């Protein structure tokens, strides 16, 4: 007899045959009910409720505007909107990852007392944050209309940007949630890394500021291309180079694939460690 190691293949009688215990309609409803639960219970004791999802990005934007328009004077036109196009997707990214990281550890009963397809926990956490993102986009839309701006044809890039963002976001959410069960350090380290990654995307500066010979390397950060796409969709117009799309897609898909692999390998041992 051998002991199970953290990430080894499970003993005979493993997970595969049991996945079929549930049909797709049940898993869909389970997912939706978890999203509903997340959205309903998140702001239960706050005075401002869901407004926090707008206030956070607004404050970040204000700070960046003051620093880079009035102190450093980058001289970029429409600077508040320019910054918002990066801050809103990033707030979504950080909130979703933070939510997903804790999704398994805060519900030990759903891991230890019942058999569910456990990936629905981080995935529903991401989906709940997506709803908040949609709300914050409404605010952005309001600001743009107030400034008398109408989106150009490049707004067609918006679903592309969102789709690419969801690829790497889902991958990070899956891997982070599972690894956080084994080492809670993950829950502390990932948000710090994300804050650093914010500066490695065209957040408060344009992509053109990045030296050409570093640009491919820079674009390996999946969010770098995504932020550029959001900005083209919502503000600057213009179309991305195929190279940017290809690199961003490749990097994002790689993160998703890694996330799925990590989650599947951790899944059989989550119960032992929680």
């Amino acid at each position, binding site marked *: 007899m051998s002991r199970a190691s953290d990430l080894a293949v499970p*003993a005979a009688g493993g997970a595969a*045959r*049991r996945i079929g215990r549930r049909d797709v309609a049940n898993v869909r*409803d389970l997912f939706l009910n*978890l999203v509903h*639960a997340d959205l309903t219970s998140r702001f239960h004791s706050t005075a401002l409720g869901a407004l926090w999802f707008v206030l956070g990005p607004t404050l970040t934007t204000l700070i960046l505007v003051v620093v880079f328009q009035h102190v450093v004077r980058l001289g970029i036109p429409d600077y508040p909107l320019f910054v918002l196009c990066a801050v809103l997707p990033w707030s979504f990214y950080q909130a979703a990852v933070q939510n997903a990281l804790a999704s398994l550890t805060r519900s030990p009963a759903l891991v230890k007392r019942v058999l569910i397809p456990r990936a629905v926990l981080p995935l529903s956490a991401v989906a709940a944050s997506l709803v908040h993102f949609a709300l914050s986009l409404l605010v952005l839309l309001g600001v743009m209309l107030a400034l008398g701006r109408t989106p150009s044809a490049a707004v067609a890039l918006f679903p592309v940007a969102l789709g690419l963002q969801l690829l790497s976001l889902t991958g990070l959410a899956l891997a982070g949630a599972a690894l956080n069960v084994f080492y809670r350090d993950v829950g502390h380290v990932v948000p710090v890394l994300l804050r650093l990654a914010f500066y490695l995307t065209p957040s408060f500066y344009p992509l053109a500021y990045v030296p050409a010979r570093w640009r491919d390397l820079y674009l390996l950060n999946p969010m770098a291309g995504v932020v550029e796409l959001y900005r083209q969709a919502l503000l600057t117009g213009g179309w991305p180079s195929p190279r940017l799309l290809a690199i961003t897609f490749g990097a994002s898909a790689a993160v998703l694939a890694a996330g799925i692999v990590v989650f599947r390998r951790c899944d059989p041992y989550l119960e032992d460690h929680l």
Partner: protein
Amino acid sequence: MNPPWSAGNGSGPGGPAEPIVLERVSKWYRRRDRRAMLAMSLYRRLTGALTPGFWALSDVSLAVRAGEALGIVGPNGAGKTTLLKVIAGITHPTSGRVAVRAHVSTHLGVGSGFQQYLTGRDNVFLQGSILGLTNRQIASRFDAIVALAGIETAVDQPLWTYSAGMTTRLGFAVAAHVDFDVLVLDEALSVGDRAFNERCAAVLQGFRAAQRTLILVSHSLATVRALCDRVLWLDRGGVRALGAADEILRAYEAARPRGDPAARVPGS
């Protein structure tokens, strides 16, 4: 992929004679450190050193017969809950083989997914979907669930306003409305008031009358004696005895030291 309980694969009466078979199943749990130390675990990984832990189950073989009610008894730490987890698929055995050819309930205890800030109604839907129902199925059973739990007036209040008894009754009521061929119960019956316990008993009798299979863990020997045909006696992770309920329970009671706290406090 076809679910294992679909036609031809055995579900309820007419299914396999032994819907659950365990062969030499063992389960190793590592001792839980306060801190998971990365350096330490890397060192162990590199050197192949054993992580400190214990065998929660060792070499358990068991064939559950279709339609029977199997009781599992044993002192605390005997491996009863671990055995149920292995059967329900919540955890994987470290070695040995588990063959499940029936629709086995996938939950231990009740109300695992309950959330304090959701209403009773929302919790019924959430918990129902956790146990495998679709929202449509839950909607059609909703009134019956609420009636069994006896919470008609509180159903739209948040769960944190419920008493402990109401919460547990609601959890049991949801679980009782999910269809299983094999129902696994872990100390679920020692909770409600008398009226509720009678309704629970009626649900379980109906379940048995439909020739469904029941696996019951309980410290209440009276409950086990009243419901079960066969009893499995677990001791320190191994099978001490398996046989007819009367015989095994008599031996278990005789072997139990007088004043054993595990025997006096149900659910401990």
